[in-house]
């Protein structure tokens, strides 16, 4: 039975592939799946326009930003609705987009455009424990991991390129792990192990 399955598997793999798909599994150093990693592929020859559908929303709810990681294309306008009963003062000092949205109360929203690719760490000046990230990308090939830590990039074009695995808590420089890739037809699945920082929660509401 086992032999039969292996044979069927081999036959499937031997099937001609029109476009290359890449499966990436991401774990931490203890082997646990990593969620909220953003995997992008940047072909050296350039990429078609990014296909992430609007609206792009970074809400404030229950004294947290949600989602924790938001992926948007460069040039996207992101709205920041405050769904809490208290006011928030959203800011970032990240070089990719320095901004502040001065204090606004529950039920109100602000919006902001993110023209440059990169990582924008956002916080709230009133509530230090609130933190989230906007990953601004300029490639059509991207995916974000869920609890299983596995993503598949589809229809990668033949040629050289750069596979970037980013996670806000990755200890790699800028949180980015770069893997040069040369696509010529089918690509073997890739497993990546990230060293994820886990810091203690900041105490002291002083």
């Amino acid at each position: 039975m086992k032999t039969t399955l292996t044979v069927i598997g081999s036959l499937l793999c031997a099937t001609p592939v029109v476009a290359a798909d890449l499966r990436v599994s991401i774990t931490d150093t203890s082997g646990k799946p990593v969620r909220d990693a953003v995997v992008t592929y940047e072909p050296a020859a350039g990429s078609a326009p990014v296909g992430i559908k609007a609206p792009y929303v970074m809400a404030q709810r229950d004294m947290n930003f949600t989602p924790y990681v938001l992926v948007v294309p460069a040039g996207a306008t992101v709205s920041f609705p405050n769904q809490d009963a208290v006011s928030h003062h959203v800011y970032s000092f990240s070089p990719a987009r320095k901004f502040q949205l001065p204090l606004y109360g529950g039920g109100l929203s602000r919006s902001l455009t993110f023209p440059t690719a990169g990582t924008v760490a956002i916080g709230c000046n009133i509530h230090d424990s609130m933190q989230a990230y906007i990953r601004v990308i300029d490639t059509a090939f991207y995916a974000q991991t869920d609890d299983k830590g596995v993503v598949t990039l589809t229809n990668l074009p033949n040629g050289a390129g750069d596979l970037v695995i980013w996670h806000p808590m990755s200890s790699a420089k800028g949180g980015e792990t770069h893997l040069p890739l040369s696509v010529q037809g089918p690509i073997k699945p890739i497993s990546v192990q990230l060293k994820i920082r886990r810091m203690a929660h900041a105490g002291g509401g002083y």
Partner: protein
Amino acid sequence: MKRLLFACLCLFPGLANAQTTLFSAETLKGWVNVRAVATNGETSWLHERAYGKTRYGGETKGRLAEAALIWTPRFSETVTGYIQVVHVPELGHETGINEAYLKWRPVPKSALRLSARLGQMYPPVSMEHEGVGWTTTHTVTPSAINSWIAEEVLVQGLELSLKQSYSQQQVGATLGVFRGNDTSGTLLSYRGWALHDIRSTTTAKLPLPRGNAGWSRIFRSQAPFTKPAKEIDDRQGYYARLDWRPSVPLALNATYYNTHGNPTDFDNGQYGWATRFFNFGAKYEPSARIEILSQLMVGNTKWGRMRADGVRAVDMDFRSAYLMASHISPKGRRLTARFEHFETEDYSNPLIDNNNETGQALTLAWMRPINAHLDLNLEWLAVSSKRPSRLYQGLDPQSSQSQLQLDLKIKY
């Protein structure tokens, strides 16, 4: 001091602009704690000037534990006010101001976070008071260390705090200068360590134990109570704290505190105490739901002229440490166990005024938020201590007792 306060106020930019919000649903908070209590053992230190280590002792009853109101007016984008008025039935039915300060938090332009406070406040020592309005979040009763901070270490001053984040770690430094708090150490010396959730106020008068011997027979100028916020010697105290969060789920801090008090000053029934301590804190989060907390405090307090033998009227070391493990469920229900040890060592004249003490306490608490306006908390606390001065009240120096509390917090 007034000139200093004025100069500091001028440092806060834009005290009135379009973002000013003095009164709104956001700027007012409050709560009432009611309790059912069952305890055995000695009478609480809060009653009849006894030595009891817990808030309640030898009684079973239901009662109001605390009522508090917090006002947090916003003067600008970055400047807020904070005033907490608290009513504690044990403090002579008095309602007083607990913390009251201006806070400045400019929006960070880099990974450096700056903030400042000016007014009456607790120095950043307790790792247990993380709740709204400087309340405990893991247990009803804080450890002996932080019970003492809450009752006898309330200062009026200016504090500057810096936090710098790096890619792999965060470091922080806090500096404070203050007035007041010159009596800090009185209660710790004459009563010893205690475990309770009483928070002091500007006008609080905390009772000191009496006896047929000991301090109350020798130092008759001392009032039968201590006023923790009192300024006596017109000298500024100071504190400094360092924080470090590395790239593992660990947070470490160290604080040095010094009242810089003149130990020979006296004013209106209150002596000036020279009190200083180190506090070391650690928090480890092995998982998202488990916390291990620990604090260690070592210090010394003294007052009186230097005698020929090189010792003052009272000269006492104090030490305490706790270790706490806490688990929080996805619904926010928290189960906590804490063990602690405390002791004092009297170098002055224990033969006529013995302020030595050793003790241990074990606390088990279950804290359950029911909804946005209601918390239900259950706590069992056992404390055992040996204090020779209990003989001054005809009591056995060794005492053990336990306290069971069911606490309902109704909040807005």
